């Protein structure tokens, strides 16, 4: 492997890759959607199907990210993000009874984040 990492920031090829592999690869779906979407009726079954597919896809993405995280999250032991996630969502089931939608969501995310930090700090103090 050539010194790819050292020259990433300085190589003009990086910009091309970002534009093509990043920009074009993403834009095709948005533009195709814009073209196709112009002809679809809101009440149609095709529309309902597309909506369910996109919801399922994001649910899968979330589950995958929690169970197989990348980046800094991957340095934590596997169970901590999962527990924090489930705890946050469990909190949501309670919050939704008492709070407006925005507050529910903020509290849930806050709970999840706080749990993550708390569990990790607990783990570290137990190991030290």
């Amino acid at each position, binding site marked *: 492997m050539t010194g790819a*990492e050292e020259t990433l920031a300085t190589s003009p090829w990086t910009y091309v890759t970002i534009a093509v592999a990043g920009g074009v690869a993403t834009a095709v*779906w948005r533009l195709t959607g*814009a073209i196709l979407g*112009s002809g679809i009726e809101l009440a149609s079954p095709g529309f309902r199907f597309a909506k369910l597919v996109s*919801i399922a896809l994001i649910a*899968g993405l979330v589950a995958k990210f929690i169970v197989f995280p*990348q980046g800094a999250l991957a340095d934590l032991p596997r169970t901590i993000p999962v527990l924090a996630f489930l705890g946050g969502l469990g909190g949501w089931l309670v919050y939704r009874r008492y709070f407006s939608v925005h507050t529910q969501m903020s509290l849930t995310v806050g709970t999840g*984040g706080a749990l*993550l930090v708390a569990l990790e700090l607990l783990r570290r103090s137990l190991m030290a």
Partner: protein
Amino acid sequence: PFFCAPARLTPAPARRTPKPMQTGSFSTIIGAIADAYRTPGLYILGMAMMGFGALARDAGFSLDQTVLMSAIIFQLPGQLVLVDQMSQGAGLLVAAFAVTLTAVRLLPMTVVLLPYLRGGGAPRWQLAAASHLVAVTAWVECLRRLPDLPERARFAYFVGFGGTMITTMIVLTGLGFVIAATTPPLMTATLAFMTPIYFAVSMMAAASARADWLAIIFGALLGPPLFLLAPGIDLALTGLIAGGAAFVIGGRLAKVESTATEPQQDNPTS
């Protein structure tokens, strides 16, 4: 007078603005911007974008490249995949393929949003340009709000909302990059963690029909195993299989409920 809108929309400015544009777009856009800054999603995604900025810096990108990624791609999973691929030295086509697979969901999302945006009478090219703003946060929020807006306001609202999101995300990506050197890893991990929780709770809060819940549950169950079995195309497969199952089962459930007197058909398990 144009804002015969429900309470959750910001009231229009008190003075009567003249309306050179046909749909009172200006006040709609201002309202949309204000709404965007009141959405927790903006701040949560903002934190995730800051995490992304730190991640990209870690991987060896420069500040302008990182910000460029947020601006051009504007889709966090795709951005993460691109950084991952490029830092491993993957070729252009390989990286493009990986990124495009994460972006597949933009297709149904855009398709779902377009009918709402169409009503304002905006020309085709504006609709196509606005599609760049489609991203999960703007999508989940607008899918909740657009139906409540008068048809002619929807496009302007979406542009205001989505435009605010992308601009703020670009700025926060840069900010995350800059402060990355001084942030402890646990902080970075927590920032990155915010996004999946936010997506999850947003979808659950927006789920209105039983089929929506089925899609969420099936999708969540299928995601990790498919990732192990078929990494790369796992997300597309998850969406199609889980979404398809939710569609079929949801449809049958609706039929059973609404035609209780008809003889039941056999429901094969999916």
